[in-house]
């Protein structure tokens, strides 16, 4: 097997000076060149913290307490803000959730794309600017020469997210992390942005880490899915496997709570919420953190943390997995 382009190993993140308050409890996953990995889970599960940690952008209030992030086999200096500057945008680009707040209101959007190129590459001004226009064209913005001189407040949320995507891809990174890139947008615009990301991936071969709490978004865009719950990896599987036969009760719960036309056609289309909420990071729990909400939970679950079990590419951390099934 080839070296993954991005490998997160046993990443643990705690509240600073309170090592008992774990936000990420040892998460590992890999991303291979050109693939799309989706990370899903309810909000508060640690998805954003994972992506910020990879970029070396963790907030001051938290810190990495264990684990590592490797890019092309080399460990990233994620706690060294200065050293990470050469990684950001060049090797790993990032797109955030709120396009409306993502750009400096005082500079034209084109200048803000230009800023990335000028920061990382020695290019003559005109060539860099040509690349800006090129990028804006590639993300399907109308009339890019004029639009480059518009200020952010003149653009719609969808247009701004396209600018942010252009910015993230300006230096041809190998990985693009998109943290809820469509959550703040209208449903019709969401679909356009997802199509755009897939097309850019086909054109450039960039690997995408798509973070979302919306499983419906994942079915047609991701190659593999990782399900996170309360700072742990609950399950990881090729997308088709996960949708057809989820093994972790939490994944099953998420699927049951997601509208799905195929399931509806097969007669199993009743939407069911998972009862309860994600436990607080301050909640001391000796066992599986999903146990209080889990229909399969036993005394064993409440006493011990389940280790991940793998069946080929399909892994899950559960003592009482959902039985393998074909579509019900």
């Amino acid at each position, binding site marked *: 097997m080839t070296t993954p382009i991005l490998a997160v190993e046993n990443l643990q993140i705690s509240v600073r000076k309170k090592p008992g308050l774990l936000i990420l409890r040892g998460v590992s996953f890999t991303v291979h060149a050109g693939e799309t990995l989706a990370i899903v889970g309810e909000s508060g599960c640690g998805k954003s913290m994972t992506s910020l940690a990879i970029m070396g*952008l963790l907030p001051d209030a938290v810190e990495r307490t264990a684990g590592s992030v490797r890019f092309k086999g080399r460990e990233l200096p994620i706690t060294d803000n200065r050293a990470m500057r050469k990684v950001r945008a060049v090797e790993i680009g990032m797109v955030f959730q709120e396009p409306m707040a993502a750009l400096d209101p*005082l500079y034209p959007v084109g200048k803000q794309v230009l800023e990335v190129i000028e920061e990382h590459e020695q290019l003559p001004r005109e060539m860099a600017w040509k690349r800006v226009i090129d990028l804006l064209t590639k993300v399907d913005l109308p009339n890019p020469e004029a639009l480059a001189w518009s200020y952010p*407040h003149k653009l719609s949320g969808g247009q701004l997210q396209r600018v942010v995507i252009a910015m993230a891809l300006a230096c041809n990174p190998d990985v693009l992390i998109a943290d809820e890139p469509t959550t703040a947008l209208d449903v019709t615009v969401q679909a356009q942005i997802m199509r755009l990301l897939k097309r850019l991936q086909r054109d450039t071969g960039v690997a995408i880490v798509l973070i979302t709490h919306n499983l419906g978004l994942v079915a047609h865009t991701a190659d593999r899915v990782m399900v996170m719950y309360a700072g742990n990896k609950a399950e990881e599987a090729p997308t088709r496997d996960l949708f057809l036969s989820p093994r972790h009760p939490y994944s099953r719960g998420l699927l049951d709570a997601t509208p799905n036309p195929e399931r509806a056609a097969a007669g199993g289309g009743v939407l069911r919420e998972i009862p309860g909420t994600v436990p607080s990071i301050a909640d001391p729990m000796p066992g599986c953190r999903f146990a209080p909400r889990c229909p399969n939970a036993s005394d064993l679950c409440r006493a011990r943390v389940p280790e991940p079990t793998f069946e080929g590419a399909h892994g899950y951390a559960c003592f009482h997995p959902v039985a393998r099934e074909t579509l019900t």
Partner: protein
Amino acid sequence: MKPIRRRFPWAFLGKRLVYGALAMLAIAIINFFLLKLAPGDAAEALAGQAGTADPEYIAQLRAQFGLDQPLLSQLWAFLTRLATLDLGYSHVFNERVSTLILSRLPATLMLMGAAILIAVIGGIVFGVTAARYANRWPDRAISFVALLLYGTPPYWIGLMMILIFAVWLGWTPTSGMENVLAFHTGWDRVVDIAHHLILPALAQSIFYLAIYIRLVRAGMLEVLSLDFIRVARAKGISERRLAYRHALRNAVLPLVTVVGTNIGNFLGGAVLTETVFSWPGVGRLMFDAMFQRDLNLLLSILVLSSLFVIVANLIVDLLYAIINPTVELK
């Protein structure tokens, strides 16, 4: 690579000029009546100086100055003179009012300009430093000193500065604008004036310096916590560039507004500073005019000051729109 030019806001400018003219008219009328309410007039003051209280002499002076006319026709005469830009003659100083004010204006503008510059530049430099080292020792030191300066009366600071720097240390002159007897010319004169300027300008700026430091610090911290800063960081931009190019420009916007509203205060503070430091500006002239009951001169200074503040505010608003592309001047 050509930016799109924004159109000059002529309509905004026209509207503001009309408002400004109306405001000045109101200021002239209100001040006219306020000053008439004060006891005494120039005739009495002059007669007092001449050492007489002879009612006939005073009445003669009154007739000569037009002070015996009914109040409303005095007001009308004053307003028509203003409208024709003729401020009249000061019998107290034996000089045309416009000449008198113009000869004092440069000194005041210089003092004000220096004070505003010190407050703004110092506010930005120390405010940004405090924000970049938030809650570490440089921030604590700057914030503590700013609080201290904020809480101290400006005239007391002025007197203390004279005492320390001029009297004890002998670094600067105690008063005046230049060493007239030295007959400096050219560059030497500039240096001499700067030497005289530093204490009064500092004394006048310190209160505002303290406010601006706090304003810039708070603004920087707020902007640095915004989403677009994290996005910019994710682009690999250096912290320095982040602070100065992105955070500062956003954080300076409220400062521009506050400086605009403070311009009137700077002018008002000039009276006090000029008196403490014997600075030969309009503030001192105003002070003297008050004592001599030269109400026409006093009124002229007040109206011109309001004109100055109105124009300065207009310029600040235009400047604000230049820095902040999201505002549209209407």
